[in-house]
C-alpha cells in the first residue's frame, strides 16, 4: 500500500531541518508540551514560518527526550513573524511517526493553538501564532 503519506512528510520535515536565519529583531520562543502518556522515546518539534512547506519543510526541527510530566524546548533568536508548530511523540523511538496499516496515526501528535483539522491535519493558518520582539511561551497538548 502507499504508506508514503503526508504523515511521513511530517517526519521528513524534521529530517530536512532548514538553515537558521538571523535578523536584527529576534526573540526566544519557549514551547511547552503536555499530554505525554509516557516518558519513552523522544518528542519531535517542527517549527514553520510560512504556509509553503507546512508539514513538509520546517524552518527548524528538533528531537528532545520525552518526559511524562511534559517537555520544554526553547527556540533562540527567532525573527519577528508568524510561526506554526507541529509535534509528535516518537514513543517507541524508531524515528518515525507511526501509523497503522490504514494510515491512521497511532502515536500522539499536536499542533500550535492545539489546532484540530477537519478530516485531515489543520492548516498553517489554523496553527499559526505571532512572535514579536518579546520572549514568548506557548503550550501544546499532545493528543
Amino acid at each position, binding site marked *: 500500500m502507499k504508506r508514503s503519506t503526508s504523515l511521513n512528510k511530517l517526519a521528513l520535515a524534521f529530517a530536512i531541518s532548514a538553515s537558521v536565519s538571523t535578523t536584527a529583531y529576534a526573540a526566544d520562543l519557549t514551547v511547552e508540551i503536555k499530554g505525554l502518556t509516557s516518558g519513552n522515546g523522544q518528542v519531535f518539534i517542527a517549527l514553520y514560518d510560512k504556509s509553503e512547506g507546512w508539514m513538509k519543510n520546517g524552518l527548524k526541527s528538533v528531537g528532545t527526550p520525552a518526559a511524562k510530566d511534559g517537555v520544554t524546548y526553547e527556540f533562540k533568536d527567532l525573527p519577528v513573524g508568524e510561526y506554526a508548530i507541529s509535534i509528535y511523540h516518537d514513543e517507541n523511538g524508531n524515528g518515525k511517526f507511526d501509523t497503522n496499516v490504514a494510515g*491512521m496515526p497511532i502515536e500522539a501528535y499536536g499542533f500550535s493553538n492545539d489546532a484540530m483539522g477537519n478530516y485531515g491535519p489543520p492548516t498553517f493558518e489554523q496553527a499559526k501564532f505571532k512572535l514579536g520582539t518579546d520572549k514568548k511561551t506557548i503550550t501544546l497538548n499532545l493528543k
Partner: protein
Amino acid sequence: MDRRSFLGAASTAATLPFLFSAVGAGAEAVAPKPLFANNPRLTPFRGFAGQDVACDNVAVEGKIPAALRGVFYRNGPGLFERGGQRYQHWFDGDGLLNAWRFTDKGVSHQAKFIRTEKFVAESEAGEFLMPSFGTAIKAKRPVKNSDSANTANTNVVRLGDRLLAMWEGGSAYDLDPQTLATRGVVTWKPELKAMPFSAHPKVEADGTLWNFGSAGFGKIVLYHLSAAGEMLRYHLLDSPPSAMVHDFAVSQKHIIFLLAPVTMDRDALKAGGSFGESLRWNGKESVKVLVVEKADFTKQVVMEMPAFMVFHFGNAWEINNMIRVDFVKSDSLDIMREYMPRLMRGESVAAAASNACFMKIDLSRRQCSMETRSESVEFPRIDPRFVAQRNRMVFYPSYVGHDPSSRFNSVLRVDTETGKTDRYTFGDDVQLEEHIVVPKPDSLKEGVGWLIGVGFDQARQQTFTTVFDALNLSAGPVAIARLPYWMPLCFHGNFYAA
C-alpha cells in the same frame, strides 16, 4: 496520491470517519423530549442512564432443559441521552453487555456498560464529548483516532480467554467473561492498533475466526485468527468501494462480500453532518460481489448484481465451484436513514421491507443469481457448527400480521432445501431480537438443539428470554425467563456452553 493518508486516510475513509469529524461540526443533537410517554412499544429505545443492572434469579415459566447450561452474551446500544442531548440513531448508543446465565440454580441476568474510553470520559463529564455514527455531536475533546468514538456496541464473541465486544469502526474491546469488567482495547499487532475489527466475525466449528475491517473507501483489511485468539494473518485488500460494509460471509474456501452502492458525501460530512447522515444511496449503481480466497487473500474475483442493500448474512458454502450465500436484503438504506431515526424519536413507523435472500455465485461462469423470499425478517442465524459448511436451515426473527408499525413478533425457521417454514408467533405485544441456535451436546445433526433469544413484552414492560426446540418452533417456547425490568434492545450475541 500520498496526501490521502495524513491523519488521514480519514479524508476518504469509510468507517474511520470519526477522526476529526466533529471538529467544527455545526448541527447539535436534538434535546430529549417526553417522546415515549404514549408509545410503550418503544420503551427500550429510551435507553438507560448508564446504570448496570442484575437479577440473580429470573422467573422461569416452563422448564429450562437440563442440558442447556452456559452463558448467553448479548451486546447492544444502551445509552442514548446525556446532558440534555439525545442521539438520533439507534446505532449511536454506548455498548451495554448482557449475560444471561443458565445454571443448575436457574437463570440469572447481568448487564454492564462497557467502559470504553468514550463512555468513561462522557460519564465523568455528564455530557456527550465525541461524535457518534448518526448524530452530529460536536467533539469537545480531541478525537485522536477511530477508537476515540468507539462504543463497542454491536456484537460479542468469546475467543480464548477474551470476551470481545465489537463495533464496526474500531478495535474490539476485551471484557472479563465472568465479571464483564472492561479490560481495554485489543491490539492484535502494533501496526493494527486502532484498526477496525468489524462486529460480525465468522467462527468455524474448530474455533478459527475470520473477520474484516472497512479501512477506508476501497480498502478492506482481512483477518484470520486461531481459536486461541492469535492473529495468524492479515491483509489490506483493494476492494470495490462501499461506504457501509457491515457483515460478510465465509464458505469452505472463500470470503464473500456483497458491497452495496453506498457512498460518502464528503461535503455533507465537512459541513458538519454525522457519518450516517452523510451516506448516500446510489440505486442505479450495482452491488459488487467480491470473492476472496481464504488461502490467499491476494486472490479475488469481482462480479456485479443490480443494486440492493444488505446488512446481515446467514452463511455461505460451496460445492463444485458454486457458492451459495444467504443474507437479508432490503431495497435501499431507508431502514437505516429513515426508519431508525424515527423510532428514536418515539414514532410508530412501519419498517421498510427486509427479506431473506439466497444467492448462487458461479465461479466458473462468473455469474450470480438470487431468489428472495417474501417473509419480513432480519438477523439471520444458523447452527454454529455449520458456519462455512453446507447448511440447510436459517433462523430469523420475523414479522407477521397487519400492524405495519409492529416489530418482529415471531420466530421463523426456513428449510432451504424444501422451502418449508416453521414458525411461532407471539402477539403484537412482543418484539423479538435476534435468535440463535444452541446445539444439543449429544447430537451432531443440524438444528438439533434450542433456539434462544430475547424479546420485549410491551404489556408487562419487561424483557424476557425464550427457549424453543429449534426443530419445532411452532410448538411454542419450552421455557420463558422473564426479568422484572426492561432492557434496551441488543443487536447480536452468542451462547457459550458451560
